[in-house]
């Protein structure tokens, strides 16, 4: 039979608010 596919790895994602926070702090850091 066909080999069973490898289970996919769950990529953890920040929430929308966390993402915004990270983006803001990166913007502040950039010159």
């Amino acid at each position, binding site marked *: 039979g*066909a*080999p*069973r*596919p*490898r289970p*996919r*790895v*769950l*990529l*953890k*994602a*920040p*929430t*929308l608010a966390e*993402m*915004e926070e*990270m*983006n803001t702090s*990166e*913007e502040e850091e*950039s*010159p």
Partner: protein
Amino acid sequence: RHRCAQPHAMSYRKILKTFGFQTRILTAPSIHRKSNPCHLLLSELKPQTLAGTVPCLPAYILYMCIRHADYVNDDLKVHSLLTSTINGIKKVLKKHNDDFEMTTFWLSNTCRLLHCLKQYSGDEGFMTRNTAKQNEHCLKNFDLTEYRQVLSDLSIQIYQQLIKIAEGVLQPMIVSAMLENESIQGLCGVKPTGYRKRSSSMADGENSYCLEAVIRQMNCFHTVMCDQGLDPEIILQVFKQLFYMITAVTLNNLLLRKDVCSWSTGMQLRYNISQLEEWLRGRNLHQSGAVQTMEPLIQAAQLLQLKKKTPEDAEAICSLCTSLSTQQIVKILNLYTPLNEFEERVTVSFIRTIQAQLQERNDPQQLLLDYKHMFPVLFPFNPSSLTMDSIHIPACLNLEFLNEV
């Protein structure tokens, strides 16, 4: 057999190289921005540029990039690409927070990207309508369920922005179009006398609108949403929400203004509502639930036109006005203004009869409708029949320089 074809050998592999997958891709110094495809795709793209191409092309391009990062098993690239995309979309929307077309464009693309992440997730529940060719484009290494949740949250935010823009355009038109403008010939002669038109909505000024203007505006919204490839189920929800707002604003004004509580306004209002219903049918939006949201207004228009004298009239009113609260019915009866000396004012005893008949109803206490109320939005899964191999990046996107990478 689980098979995963190599990503299509077109320029998106090169796009990925140029992306560089920097986490700060969209906040990079401006000197790099002109040669940054993510920036070009997200920040500088105008919906008109893509007229005549596949609807939601940016979403497909972004999915192809994600799929490539998945294929080379690079989780950082996937993270980076999705984070850049989400933050980029938020930035564009912030900049264009009063632009209906731009907001529709990105709602459409965000939903399409979300659909792609489901359709090609490898989850059999989302693959039932996929062709064998489409299944070759499924993600191989990563489960992006959590990112799907973020995109779903983002879609809700964009939907709310879209509604806010549309409501902002329509709201100033509602009172004059629905209650003050007289399009039925001969109704002027049967208007109650002794009331000046209210200046709040500038009925006689330059801000006076007829119903045709409201319909023209809704035609415009509908055309933009269709052109941008927004899912039909979302378009239905937009109109249900807009019709609720039209109802709430109109009914609230009726409940506060004696000069419009008359038989003739009831007649004009019923006519206007029928025009709106006809418009919904003409655009195939009748199944949206929009007409149901207008029910309190339809009943208010009928209440203005019904006889209000005998116990039988009271019974007819009570059995008809099921979507109006007792408080609203009584208020309209109290405000009701006879047309002329031959029509009598509604008597106190008639109103008491109505109140007695309705006392068992468990009605809400507030008189006015919350015109800012939002129905919860749903984004039903809508897989695409398009095959990724058929996607081509048009020259108008100015991404052709990528071929030189």
